[in-house]
């Protein structure tokens, strides 16, 4: 198993800076480390898997935020199609949906939905992210692609209120059916919540 094939798919840190030459060039000591630093910063940005995936599937773009897993972004409309290709393409073979969850980006007015795909044959992991507006959180379901999506999506619906279009059985999974609100939203409030006023304690 090579480094690229590890589930985290971390690119190996770029090659160590070359050892200083026996006779240093006094003219340019400053630019050389800078160039190396740039290289160090640039290289982990695009792991091989992300490059491959984006080249094969046009709808995918490299993930804009920081992530320790190779990550791509996709528009909600292209989600099901791209995920199906990622599962069926023998080069990637993401046969498992390891995890699916949401992040409440309340400042941007968006929910970020992340799908963590895992390939048992290549042992690589890919994060697929898509963003939907907070005021109309509707996204097509991926139940057809992986069976477990049905229940992972139910969990996200239960806690975030994301509505999955075409879901066969969209209902609460942990909370009662008549529960008001979605607890993992950042603006969720109810009567039972404990609020700690730190300033008052001081």
């Amino acid at each position, binding site marked *: 198993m090579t480094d690229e094939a590890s589930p*985290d798919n971390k690119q190996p840190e770029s090659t160590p800076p070359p050892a200083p030459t026996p006779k240093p060039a006094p003219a340019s000591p400053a630019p050389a480390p800078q160039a190396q630093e740039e290289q160090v910063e640039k290289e982990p940005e695009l792991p091989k898997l992300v490059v491959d995936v984006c080249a094969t599937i046009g709808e995918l773009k490299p993930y804009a935020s*920081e*992530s320790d897993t190779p990550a791509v972004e996709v528009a909600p409309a292209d989600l099901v199609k791209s995920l199906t290709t990622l599962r069926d393409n023998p080069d990637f073979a993401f046969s*498992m949906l390891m995890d699916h969850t949401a*992040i*409440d980006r309340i400042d941007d007015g968006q929910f970020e939905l992340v799908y963590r795909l895992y390939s*048992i044959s290549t042992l690589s992991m890919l994060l697929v992210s898509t963003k939907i507006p907070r005021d109309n959180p509707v996204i097509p379901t991926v139940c057809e692609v992986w069976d477990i999506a049905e229940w992972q999506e139910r969990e996200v619906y239960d806690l975030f209120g994301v*509505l999955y279009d075409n879901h066969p059985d*969209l209902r609460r999974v942990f909370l009662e059916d008549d529960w008001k609100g979605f*607890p993992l939203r950042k603006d969720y409030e109810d009567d039972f919540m404990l609020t700690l006023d730190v300033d008052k304690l001081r």
Partner: protein
Amino acid sequence: MAVKVSTLDERIKLTDSADSPLDTQEYFINMGPQHPATHGVLRLMLKLDGETVREVIPVLGYIHRGIEKIGEHSTYRQFVHLTDRCDYLSAMMNNWAVSLMVEKALKVELNDRIEYIRTIMAELERIQSHMLWWGVLGMDLGAFTPFLYGFRDRELITDIFEETIGCRLTMNYIQPGGVMDDIHPNFVDRVKKVIEYAKPKIDEYEELLSGNVIIQERLRNVGVLSADKATSLGVTGPVLRASGVPLDLRRVAPYGVYDKVNFEVAVGSVGDCWDRYWVRIEEIRQSMSMIEQLIDNIPAGKTMLMKPAKKTVLPEGSHYAQLETARGILGIYAVSDGVSDKPVRIHMRSPNYNNVWSADEMTRDSRIGDLVANVSSIDIVVPDIDR
């Protein structure tokens, strides 16, 4: 809203009226939440046709504590303490997953002593978890003796934990940057003694239960889960390996010192309850062998490399680490804003939550008795499902 949201009542009504043959009538019945064979407060809605189970609908949430919400208001070091309360039989492995995530994000290099202690502790915990499962499986299938045997032997391992850690169930032992405290001076000797004692006991287990005709009849070719279906259902751990998929993170993506020990990954071929039984029994043996290889070679060194009092701020972005608990892959996903020492979002990819849904696939069109065997062979821990 265009998207239709349903309720449990609707779900039951909808499928009930869908088919009504003339001679028999299908009906729904509750199994649990207080049923001895559902291992805690798990409620299963069974759609029955006589004694044949047509559908299993797990109804969850009886001990949902909102651990992910609490996690958003606690630091990473505090969150470690919450993970014990999820899968309490893999408590230290849960601690380890959070620690692994934090250490990976902060690029903390651990010394060998910490890695050895963690690995030994995790394997001890895996053994006691599987011992308890073995006893409970016996009891679910109508044999009371295995339950006593399993608890009797598990007790010796929890005694070891108690001596070093001070706790028997919720340990909080593995922390970001190391382990809470050094191992007790007696630790090495006691572990060796327990392994020596438990090795023949596993053979005794096999004599007691494995060869039993009733157990064989109850487990063989019951609840078959094919490899493709298991993968698509996101099942991990012994359940997936019993279906013939050799996915064990200890082997394919070693953490701790799993790359320094020799062990074999037990893989089934049929994917029935018997394979799941056999895989776990074999895993106990492999874990014992791993501990034997490690216990004499614990190197010297510090046991905590990060200052506990220091504020731990992860770099901005998302971080993920996963490892193999006794029940499957546990992943910790944290999103940090790079400023606060609390995560913006922390999520547990719980092995039990993903495994429990395979009960329906396993049980369809078989008997209630088989459902008990199936649920028992998945080996679920309900607090980890509900979180």
